């Protein structure tokens, strides 16, 4: 713990505590138990509206599930007056976030996918274009965390992953600094989002606060919604 890592059993406790906290905050994290894994994982779905602002950064993102030209218009009489003709509305991207334990790094890992309504996954470049500008520049300089596509350790399908190799040092710095420095730090190593919380010693940690702290620092990078109340409730 002092080195920023956590054991699988602590992770399992953190998951349960976190899901309870999520329910209190009316968030939608769900616990999933994997058959062959001790601690399971948690997941959350979220929709991302590609509003004007985002549509700009992802302008190249055109869903390729278009009409099938060789399939001639089918003989279907389906017009009737009770249906409103929905104009093409805001484009929506579905996001799915999973927090899974990494045995090799002894830290939680964030796996996620973003996809169109056809089920087609966004590419790495498209995902990058959705990373808020501020983190894009910060990440390109510091390069201490990055996105890669990996097989999901439990579901066995490709997911994007925030590489766990710096999680321990991030959490170590956070845990140590929080024991000594109560104020919000500007050091990016404290967390990408600059999220900090009230001071307390690591031994007084509340269950779930490891996940809260880690997740709130990485969430904004991948547009995962995370209420500030997690920090407030989780640490009091």
């Amino acid at each position, binding site marked *: 713990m002092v080195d920023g890592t956590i054991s699988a059993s602590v992770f399992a406790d953190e998951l349960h505590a976190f899901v309870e906290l999520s329910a209190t*905050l*009316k*968030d*939608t994290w*769900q616990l999933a138990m994997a058959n062959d894994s001790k601690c399971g994982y948690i997941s959350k*779905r979220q*929709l991302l*509206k590609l509003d004007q602002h985002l549509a700009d950064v992802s302008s190249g993102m055109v*869903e*390729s*599930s*278009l*009409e*099938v030209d060789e*399939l*001639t*218009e*089918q*003989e*279907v*009489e*389906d*017009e*009737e*007056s*009770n*249906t*409103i*003709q*929905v104009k*093409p*509305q*805001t484009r*929506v991207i*579905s996001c*799915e976030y999973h927090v899974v334990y990494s045995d090799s790094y002894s830290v939680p890992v964030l796996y996620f*996918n973003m*996809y169109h*309504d*056809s*089920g*087609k*996954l966004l*590419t*790495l470049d498209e995902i990058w274009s959705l990373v808020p500008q501020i983190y894009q520049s910060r990440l390109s300089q510091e*390069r201490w965390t*990055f996105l*890669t*596509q*990996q097989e999901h350790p439990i*579901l066995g*399908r*490709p997911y994007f992953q925030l*590489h766990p190799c710096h999680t321990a040092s991030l959490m170590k710095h956070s845990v140590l600094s929080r024991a000594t420095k109560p104020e919000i730090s500007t050091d990016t190593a404290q967390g990408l989002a600059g999220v900090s919380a009230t001071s307390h010693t690591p031994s007084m940690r509340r269950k779930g606060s490891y996940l809260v702290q880690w997740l709130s620092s990485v969430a904004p990078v991948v547009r995962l919604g995370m*209420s500030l*109340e997690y920090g407030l409730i989780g640490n009091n």
Partner: protein
Amino acid sequence: MATSACSTANLQFAPFSSALDAGFWHKLSENKLDVYGLDDKPRKIHGFYFNGDAVGIPCRLNVDYTAFNEIPQIPPNYFLSHGILQNKNTIDAFKSCDKKELLNDIAHELWLDITSGKAIDDPTLLSKFLMLTYADLKKYHYYYWFTFPALCAPETFPLTKKPIRFSERFTEEQTNAFLAAYTQFQESTRGQRGVKTGYFILQETQTGLQVANLKDADRLLSDPQGKVLFCVCDPSTLAEHPGWPVRNLLTLIAYHWADKLPEVEIVSFRDRISQGSRDISHSLVFTVQLQSLSNLTECPKCVGWEKNAKGKLVPRMVDLSATMDPVKLSESSVDLNLKLMRWRLLPELDLEKITRTRCLLLGAGTLGCNVARSLLGWGVRKITFVDNSRISYSNPVRQSLFVFEDCLHGGKAKAEAAAESLRRIFPGVDAQGHSLTIPMPGHPLSESSIEQTRKDVAVLEELVDQHDVIFLLMDTRESRWLPTLLGAAKGKIVLNAALGFDTFLVVRHGVKMPGEPMDTGPPGEAKLSSNVHGSQLGCYFCNDVVAPGDSTRDRTLDQQCTVSRPGMSMITAALAVELLVSILQHPEEGGAPADTSARDEHITKDMMSILGLVPHQIRGFLSRYYNLLPASRAFEKCTACSSIVIEHYRKEGFGFLLSAFNQPSYLEDLTGLTQLHQETLDSEVWAISDDDESM
């Protein structure tokens, strides 16, 4: 109570739009292969919808990887929709199947659920969908078309009270009472399956609001104390229009209760969490006039096929090969792995350049196999082998692309087998093999073999043209002569690797720029100015003062014998590939200068690639685990790379080569080595034994 429908607007509904996840297609593919086979009978699946989306999000019917679960696994706060999957075996069956009949079948089922009252007991039956699919599992193309059946009865839904917000219809106190009752209702009615009810009744009395099941409707409707409102969990976020689930509920009400209830007040219940607090104030309340259906005996017309993004009634197709085709997945993960190295350590690393580099490997023995594997590791995608031998029993233990089976029945041809093996390791590679004999100088050709040799030379010339890098990995010195000449004449990067028992040599040949004047000067390390430009560096033969002759004749060991320490070829092959990568990463590529002294203080910045030095030669001594990095200039009398040789080849082509093959002293006479011999006594030449078994 208003009974007239005159000039009233009709209620219109927002249709569902389908929302799939990649996991659904994975699961469908798996089921098609492992379970369904050619059986295309309808299968039960599940979908779900949500009544808490933010404004602007269309009504979505989600179908994900849990769709096939026997017991529906619905996310909290979502509502079940019963689906039928109709997966067709061919694109023709998908196109030609009768869409009307498909919709009719599901409409009849829905109508039966309504008229029989089954849907009163289990209102989830009001929400159904059908999914017509065809999965092209070779291309990972998925064709699909959803229908969300809605019965067109009554034909219209005249509004007697237009939709208003929940908060306009009810006080805050009532809202809180409703929420408390609703929460308790969901807790108590949640079946063993954990499925929430998306349809319920709200009874408004003097004392407050109660929530009840649809099956309590008869009792509540006859209760004079309270007013009955029908509630639907509504996926729509539009201010004027409820979503699809409301439609079939209205049909149900019209069939069972419209006689008592000529108009009915409906709550389109929307339940959103925003910034940690629950908000239902945007739910809609409206009143519609319902024409009774109690006398209707036939199943009414049904609509529901989903339009595509352009508003056309056609199926959709999604190409998921990028994330489902294992070949593409392996390619992208190999690329990502390399990119990871770049991101972490070498931001300037030009991986695309390496990937684009086309490599010709002359020799598919121990060196060829190991060079190919290292190239794969660097992401090289085009690898071509040339070899003329077959795989024998002694080979697989050292030649890392072969296995025992390859030796049976006389052995497979090495070049083709090596290419096939590469493709098995990594299907993304473009690997080819050519069984070809490389003619050697001083090995006279019989009259009958000239034509074959002419063809072989033509193939080799073409191969050299088609590649960027030539690796010389054969087991005789002489066979390296022709490709050295071709590489020099065509300005290719040539990497030469040769093995002794416990010594090895890796050389990058000087890359001659076309039209560039040849360097003059004595061979070897005689010049002390230490920095030699890549175009001035020597080739494998530049240090020789004898032309390559028939060195195989006096061999004491034949080619099957093992004369190198087994680890040597891996070391040497790896160094040859790493040297290539350093060359490719140097701004001058083959022109990268090298230092003859190999002393640290002589190393200048222009000699470095981002990966470090780009030495001319690496000479290794395994007995001392020691490497030297000498560099030497090209020799004007070199029998393989000197201007005079290249000019003769360019002018005379095969005729010149034929003279070199057939006349033992031809090259020495041409270059002036014969004369030099007379002037110089044997100088001590660092010679590498290449009597290895690499082929």
